[in-house]
């Protein structure tokens, strides 16, 4: 009996001297991952995430916006933007994808550069890209988490507040100004800069061009601020040729992330057609046979290219294959570039500045014509199979449809609408601001907008549970979480 107790006692002594967790700290470190990566290794990834994958490009970009502003049309029931149906998952797809990827990563890169004490080109490039990412989100949804977003790990902010769009815009403009100033003559990003390949002049041009774009966005809400920043941007130096186009070059694989998100959609979805609104507008425009082709046989003969009216359904259209669809031989490829901002847009915005009598070298007509030319000739630069539009063709077009100062703003805006095909975020934003082109809404009984074209896409209702207070505050400030509520710069 005593022996038993002694044995147990001895055992416990032995046990207590054992190191039971030897080697555990090392074991709990993932051997297949790194604790930090060089920014150059993260930059290409966040650019691709900004370009987006198939998911958000399908839902937010194409299913909603492209048909809302009548670039495309579709009879398929799930193309909700054509007849203004509510599909929560589709409408919130950009938000659902951007925040956990592009936003999170860009904030991580910015935090890393800050902690490394980097205030040079890399920081400038990061801040410009960051503004671009947030500009898409705020233009689409209105007030959004901005100053506190993406900082779940770095600052432990789990429920970011929604900043007022006005504050976001003011901060973004300031960011661009400071960022451009930080850009030097070279960068250590190396191959990570898949947008401009280390060409710092192009980064500066883009930074200032974004400033121009965001400034012009404010013409309805705060014209004075718009004027001040637009003039500042022009003075600082915006894009000067199609070589400055801000875009991401994609490849046909090897994986989804490498491919153009729109291209992947066109692979999977044969439903979109060219909208009648757009095709009719492109009458006599040399771009028509490049952008469109007939669904049934791919013909690009002008007589064969008919646009399908938005709002069509299986009941009103027996055979959709007679209509034109986005040209699958030219613009729908998985290796097509994803365009963030074009030189054509810059010239057209300058035309608008001139139209308004703001300080910009050159008159509206010159800028208008240069913008049209750039928009036409960029196609062959962007898309491998696009036919080159010659200077003569451009001239013919401009002669047939000359710039008319009386309807200057309308013409500029309509050209802008055409030039931003497949950059539907920008197209939708500019249409809301200018009201041009004049679009006739569809009127399906199932629409949730009272027969009007939506003015924004809705917030995810999940925020009601995960970020209740801030969500409620945003709605109280901006208006109900509907498709018809206008964002600040649209009011």
């Amino acid at each position, binding site marked *: *009996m005593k022996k*038993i107790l002694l044995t*147990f006692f001895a*055992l416990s002594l032995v046990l207590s001297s*054992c190191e*039971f*967790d030897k080697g555990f700290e090392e*074991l*709990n470190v*993932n*051997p297949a*991952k*790194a*604790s930090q*990566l060089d920014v150059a290794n*993260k930059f*290409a990834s*966040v650019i*691709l995430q900004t370009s987006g994958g198939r998911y958000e490009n399908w839902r937010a970009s194409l299913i909603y916006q492209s048909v809302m502003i009548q670039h495309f049309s579709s009879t*398929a*029931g799930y193309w909700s933007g054509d007849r203004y149906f509510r599909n*929560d*998952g589709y409408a919130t797809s950009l938000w*659902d994808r951007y*925040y*956990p*990827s592009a936003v*999170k*990563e860009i904030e*991580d890169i910015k935090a890393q550069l800050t902690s490394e004490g980097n205030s040079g080109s890399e920081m400038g490039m990061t801040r410009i890209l960051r503004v671009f990412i947030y500009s898409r989100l705020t233009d689409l949804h209105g007030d*959004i*988490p901005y100053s506190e*977003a993406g*900082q*779940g*790990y770095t600052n432990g902010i*789990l*429920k*970011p507040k929604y900043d007022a769009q006005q504050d976001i815009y003011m901060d973004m403009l300031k960011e661009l100004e400071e960022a451009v100033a930080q850009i030097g003559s070279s960068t250590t990003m190396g*191959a990570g*800069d*898949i947008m401009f390949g280390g060409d710092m002049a192009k980064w500066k041009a883009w930074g200032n061009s974004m400033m121009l774009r965001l400034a012009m966005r404010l013409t309805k809400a705060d014209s004075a601020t718009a004027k001040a920043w637009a003039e500042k941007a022009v003075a600082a130096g915006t894009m000067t040729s199609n070589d400055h186009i801000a875009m991401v070059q994609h*490849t*046909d*694989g*090897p*994986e989804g992330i490498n491919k153009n998100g729109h291209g992947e959609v066109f692979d*999977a*979805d044969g*439903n979109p057609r060219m909208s009648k609104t757009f095709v009719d507008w492109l009458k006599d425009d040399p771009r028509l046979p490049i952008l469109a082709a007939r669904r049934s046989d791919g013909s690009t003969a002008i007589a064969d290219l008919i646009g399908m009216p938005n709002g069509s*359904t*299986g*009941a009103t259209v027996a055979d959709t294959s007679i209509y034109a669809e986005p040209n699958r031989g030219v613009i729908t490829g998985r290796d097509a570039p994803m365009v963030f901002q074009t030189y054509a847009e810059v010239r057209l915005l300058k035309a608008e500045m001139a139209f308004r009598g703001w300080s910009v070298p050159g008159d509206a007509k010159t800028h208008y014509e240069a913008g049209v030319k750039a928009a036409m000739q960029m196609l062959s630069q962007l898309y491998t199979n696009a036919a080159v539009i010659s200077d003569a063709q451009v001239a013919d077009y401009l002669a047939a449809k000359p710039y008319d100062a009386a309807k200057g703003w309308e013409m500029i805006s309509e050209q802008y609408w055409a030039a931003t095909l497949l950059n539907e975020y920008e197209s939708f934003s500019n249409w809301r601001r200018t009201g041009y082109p004049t679009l006739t809404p569809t009127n399906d*009984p*199932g*629409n949730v907008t009272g027969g009007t074209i939506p003015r924004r896409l809705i917030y995810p209702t*999940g*925020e009601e*549970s*995960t970020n209740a207070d801030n969500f409620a505050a945003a709605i109280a400030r901006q208006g109900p979480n509907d498709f018809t509520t206008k964002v600040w710069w649209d009011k």
Partner: protein
Amino acid sequence: MKTKFLTILSSFLLMFAFGFSVQAQSISGTVTDDNGVPLPGATVLVEGTQNGVSTDFDGNYSINASNGDTLVFSFVGYTNQSVVVGSSATVNVSLQPDNALSEVVVTALGMKRNVKAVGYSITQVGGEELSDNKTTNAINALQGKVAGVMVTGGSMGAKGSSRVVIRGTSSLTGNNQPLYVVDGITINNSNLGSAGVWGGADYGDGISSINPDEIESVSVLKGGAAAALYGSRASNGVIIINTKTGAGTKGIGVEFNSSTQFDMLNLSLRDTQEIYGQGRDASKVSDAIDTYQAWGPKMDGSLVAQWDGVARPYTNKGSNLDKFYQTGETYTNTIAVSSSDENGSTRFSVTNLDNLDIVPNSTLKRNSFGLNSSRKYGDKLNVDVNMKYILEDQEGNPQLSDSPGNGNFAVNLFAPSVSVDDMMGEGGLGRNADLTEFRISDNTYSQNPYFAAYNFINSSEKSRFIGAVNARLDITDYLYLRGRMGGDRYDLHKTSSTPWGTAFQPNGSINENKSTFKQYDVDAFLGTDNLQIVDGLVLNAFVGIGTNVQEYDAVSKSGSDFIVPFLINVGNTKNQGGGYSYWKTKINSAYGSAEFGFQDWAYLTLTARNDWFSTLSLKDKVAPNNDLYTSASLSLVLSDVMDLGDTVSFLKLRGGYSQVAGGADSPYALSLSYGIYGQGHLGASLGNISGGTIPNSEITPFEKNETEFGVDLRLFDNKLSIDATFYDNETLGDIVGVSASATSGFGAALANLGNISNSGIELLVKGEIMRTDDFAWNASINYTNNTSEVVATNDTGGNISMDEPRSRNLNVTHIVGEKYGALYGSSYVRNDAGAIVHEMVNGIPIPKIGARKILGFGVAPTALGFGSSFRYKDFNASILVEGKTGGQIYSGTNAFLIRNGHHKKTVPAGGREAGFTPSGVMEDGSSITTSIPQSQQEDYYRRTYSIAEEAIQDSDYMRLRQLSIGYTLPSDMLEGSFISKATVSLIGRNLFFLSNSTDNIDPESAYNNGNSAGLEWFGLPVPRTIGLNLNLKF
């Protein structure tokens, strides 16, 4: 070694000494129960003397008795047996139980304990309960049999995984399934692939590998006191499975078992309208390609061009479910050879299972080999070796949930005038002549069901080895050393492929994944058995240490866009990617247990265990990476010390308090890490943050505390037994994903903030209603009720959102103050009187979409089971009726059936032509007067799809779960043949419902076995099974 030799030598000397002094001899042998299971602690007494001994752990004894003495063998719950000592020195005895209950239970760490001493609730079920009416996933046969244990499974196909929850869910977001211990070794039960909101296929779980034919007994340790010795992995209870040994075989025994089962659809479940055919807006020609819509006019037999342009009569084509699904078949054949002698026993078994699921082209082949050997070496050493080897091949695992690749989706939604028989296509198997998918819908993501079933590949090959060595060395009479070593290893190869020609992915894709999982456990403990400390106080105690190591690695390769169509090889793809993943964890433990028995009627058991977790270790971490937890339980056998009258034959009160630590399952969760993914882009590498959860470096394990007390009462000479348990447990510091807004960049942060409690009652009443020589009738009722409460979620008491169904208008959510797993989704807007508020849209009143509310709870709190077994001469029959009540289910299938015009509620009295006026009010409070014409009725129901409340129903049911009728050939018929026992039985499962509160679906539907119970989305129908079982013993 020296000690052993000395011990043996001294034994011999002692024997000789005794032998010379008295004319007595040493009689030895084994005492077993009627099944051959050894009875430890049985008493062997020389009648009329004080000379008595107890049997050891393996039922062996050794006593000195003279020729002519009578040895009396006794054990509580068994009838005494007397044997006169003769010339033989070996006397083996098999005691017959007083009643059907066995008094020895297998508790933690393989300790066999007398039920008297056990201070907590433990239920033991014989192996035949799982093998007589066997299911392809063995654990599903336990449904409805054990109070406190809720088993759900079956709507993920024959190969699907199962969900077992004991005493309510203890973790808000973590693992809630119990620990499975097979022959003393913990096995891995992770799910090998499951369907989520975006679809996917279920590849089964770990427990499905265990062969039901080889199960001897199952012990369910439900509470903390029972499971405390298994450590943190047992925080949800432990299910101990012991496989058959050869013990009790006379000489060499051969057993052959053959079972054939057929699974058939229960067509009565679905009751949809058969009046209106395909169409939209009351027109049969609009949208011919939209085959899911049933808003056309009345079917009148006229010809109409269908989705493929072919004109067919506009009539009701009958049930597409019946046409598409086939009768499932399962053939299981087992041969086992066993032998036993006085030094041990051996059993070797081979089982072949061949299953054809109800979905076409879905098969399962499983070959299991088992070898169990139990040996005694000398007097002191016992070694058991248990090995299992399982080879499994699954083909055609059906995809569930979201529509891509999910044939179930289409089959459930075709309009009545559409027949799936017409969908084979010119190329056969759902394909056009050019072998692309023969499309049946305008949405590329809606799959032709035959194309999905015959061309999509979701297959796996698995080989699994589970092995254990248990050894026990008796150092002295009451000091022993035990060691266990065991491992579980599986190698899995999964292939999934979207075929060339699929509408949503024309060039197809393929993914190959090879993974290996290894787990091994080593334990050693030193203990005492039946040590008398002082008079009347007996101690059973042990102290031990152990380690558990788990390691996993997987290599995958994927490719999209096949170069050569139909050459299914990942090398034959244009765009290739791949990956590698790895993890390893370790838990080291030290534990001990002491059971004090006072005068054979009062027992106090104390345990303590400390676990060290590698998953909680991090350099510079402040919070500890280990946890100490204890338990105490008390058992009082009042019937042994009080006179309770003749009616009461046994009364035991038991109770206890326990703590178990848990959680901390995931490695590498304490710090943020980055990874390189993909294959670069234009020469740049792609790196990003790994994971979407914010790590927390100060995580600790959660603590689950439980109080339980119970009563074990047996009346009328053990004919009626009542076992009731009340329990109350609380999990503190549950590791929860503190929900973060997605705008933080992450979905959640980890913190020890969760707190969930469960309390409930388990009741098991068993009775022998009648027993004569020819006829016996036993019945049992088991009742479980569990009430859960989410006490705390996170720092702000916010909701924790779990899974959502594909309609994305509802989340399974944990809300403070409510029960676990609320179905929180969009609701109707109602006025104060409860009337539904409508708004005018395009001239018709449509319900408004309201805010999210709690619409129900996905976990049913109450389960009830009634079982009866009969024996008449050589016939036996048993029946089990069981059901659940109190839970709700969100049915994606019904949401669609309503939206698309199939559900009977979309046909108003008087038909659609008469129009219908919705009940409810308009926004201004006025009652609705507008009658919605037939052409617009679909707009009304389209809106209801966005309102989750519409698809919520109670999931109460009561069904005939099992029925079996068997016949054992009388032994005189078998005389002369080499067959020693032959039994034939007819079995049935899920035969019919006595009540069912859901429409059109099985109330037990789910598409995965995760924590988000209550979501149904186009899974497989749960079939009825009928089968025949033949068992021969030679």
